[in-house]
């Protein structure tokens, strides 16, 4: 039983990690708390849903489409809107992205209505039984894809010129500028990458959970948790944070009771913030 509980936590944790990584990346480089994040998840999920329900495209094949569309959208959003307040106090970026989130959610509500939808392909309920352990294929696959996406991002940051420029900008903006990096461009690319990878996470989520316009809010809360636990701007930390959240939820629900689930999560988040704002590895940013 304990093994199964841990396994559930890990499987779900992989997806959690993938949507928190984008949040962490954007905070780490741009120093903004991106409230639109939840809507990126929602848009990714809807892209997968529509491709699946209209064209019958396998949900996993829609991942690149989600990434590409949100990459472009994120780039434009940063370049033309968010960039204008990048130097302003944090409150302003919180408010701005919050306003954007209101706009996106409600447009989605007009276009797609409040209906709950499922991406439910043939193989959705299949599972692998290992003795008493049950591993739903779809959760295993989404977890693996989520980890691949995070790994890809990490590879990109470490082994490409643009990636290195992003890292340099996050560490020292003025220094990067002196070396010929254009921060505005780097910011836009970072934001686009963050949006793209978050959309992939949204697509993956849609295979296990319901899809509806207001779905982003709760995932945004989870992102806060993961990123605070992992350390703001610390990508491997976000990965670990995701697993911690998944396992914690699973453990609490199993051994204490579902009602206390959120209380425990928020308490942990709260205590982390106060005692260790740099995250478990102590590598996160503080102001």
């Amino acid at each position: 039983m304990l093994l199964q509980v841990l396994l559930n936590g890990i499987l779900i944790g992989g997806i959690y990690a993938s949507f928190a990584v984008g949040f962490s990346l954007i905070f780490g480089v741009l120093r903004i708390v991106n409230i639109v994040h939840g809507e990126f998840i929602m848009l990714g999920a809807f892209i997968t849903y529509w491709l699946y329900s209209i064209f019958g495209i396998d949900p996993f094949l829609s991942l690149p489409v989600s990434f590409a569309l949100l990459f472009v959208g994120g780039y434009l959003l940063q370049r033309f809107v968010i960039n204008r307040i990048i130097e302003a106090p944090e409150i302003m970026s919180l408010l701005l992205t919050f306003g954007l989130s209101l706009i996106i959610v409600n447009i989605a509500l007009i276009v797609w209505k409040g209906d709950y939808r499922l991406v439910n392909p043939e193989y959705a309920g299949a599972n692998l039984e290992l003795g008493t352990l049950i591993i739903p294929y779809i959760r295993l696959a989404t977890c693996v894809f989520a980890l691949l996406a995070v790994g890809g991002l990490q590879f990109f940051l470490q082994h490409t010129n643009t990636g290195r420029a992003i890292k340099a900008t996050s560490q020292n903006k003025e220094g990067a500028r002196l070396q010929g990096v254009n921060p505005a461009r780097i910011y836009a690319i970072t934001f686009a990458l963050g949006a793209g990878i978050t959309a992939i996470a949204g697509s993956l989520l849609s295979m296990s959970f319901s899809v509806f316009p207001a779905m982003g809010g709760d995932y945004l809360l989870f992102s806060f948790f993961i990123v605070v636990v992992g350390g703001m701007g610390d990508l491997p930390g976000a990965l670990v944070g995701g697993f911690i959240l998944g396992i914690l939820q699973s453990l609490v629900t199993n051994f204490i009771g579902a009602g206390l689930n959120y209380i425990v999560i928020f308490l942990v988040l709260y205590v982390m913030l106060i005692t260790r704002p740099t995250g478990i590895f102590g590598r996160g940013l503080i102001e």
Partner: protein
Amino acid sequence: MNVFTFRGKRFCTALLILLLSMALSVTVYARDTFVFGSAIALTGKFAREGASLKKAYDFWAQQVNAQGGIEVAGKQYPVEIKYYDDKSDPRTTTKLVEKLITRDKVDLIFGPFSSGCVGPSSTITEKYKVPMIEAAGNARSLFKRGFKYLFCTLRPADELADPYMRLLVKQTPKPKTVAIIAPKSPFYLSAASGFETYAKKYGLDIVHYETYPVAMEDITPILQKIKAKDPDVLCVGSHTVVAMMVMKQSKEIDFNPKAYCFSFGTLGSEFPKELGDDANYILEYISISEGSPFEDPLFGTTKEFIGHFKEAYQSRPDSTQAAAVAGGIAFTRAIQNAGVIPPFDEAKRTKVRNELAKLDIVTAAGPVRFDATGINEANPLGIYQYQNRVPVCVEPDAWLEAKFIYPAPKWGDR
């Protein structure tokens, strides 16, 4: 300073005139239609449920108007329903209900969606002595407050579980154990406590009872826990998304109770559309079925009523929709019994209220008789089961459309 006081005076006078003219302009003109009002969730967390409730009110109004209106003392008065969107927010419901009563001067009120919104807004209808019939807030606590103007055409939430258990204990092998889960919100909790009461009453053993936060979507951990206890029956205080997630996640972890009971939300068109074959074998209660022996002059037999409703909205009326239509008919009959014509004043509304309290009628959407607290005690209850993606009535025997399939096949054998 002199200048200012002068200006202030003029400003005050202007304001006074404005306010007075506003007060005077809200006089009630004679009209020969009945105007009903409803503040109902068209956006927000209950947008879906609110919209389906509105469909039912509209369905009733269209049918009444198609026949020329409500006939009182030889004259027909068409009906009109004035809607406002309460955004699923009880604060807004109270504001809009008061607006409907004091500004729009509606004659009677149809209720909002969910107990959370019925609770505060019913104190307003009570204050203004405007009868409200609602079909979406049947938590007992709402009817323990001694209100005189609040009526609910649903059976009390805690009684709804009766038909499920009644049906289940008739099966062989007889189920022995039940697990009950529900999100923590009045609507689901009262359903869950009903499941608990009736499971005990019919001698079933409750092996698991758990409520969880509404926001929690990944309920696999809970289901896993329940799976380990291997209950015969899973009962869920639900609405659409809860029911969808329970089915999807049960399949993922290969959890196979012999019966899935949902309190609400599976009869709309979304549930079978999104789940496909995975929707099969689940149960939801209903107060009418095509086989129900009810009829009324407005809709004809229950079978005809359901047929028309399906034509209009591509789905069977679920329990709240049926109750909403029954509520419309209850208003009609109370108005006719009281013999009052629009527009209503307090005396006329009181008459209607007294007639409602005495009402004992049968409608195509189910019988209506309010008990002393204002909640419908007459509705018989039945059960639908999804078979081949279509809900069919499996209880009571008199309404039977198909044989109840029990136990539900395991996921692997479907």
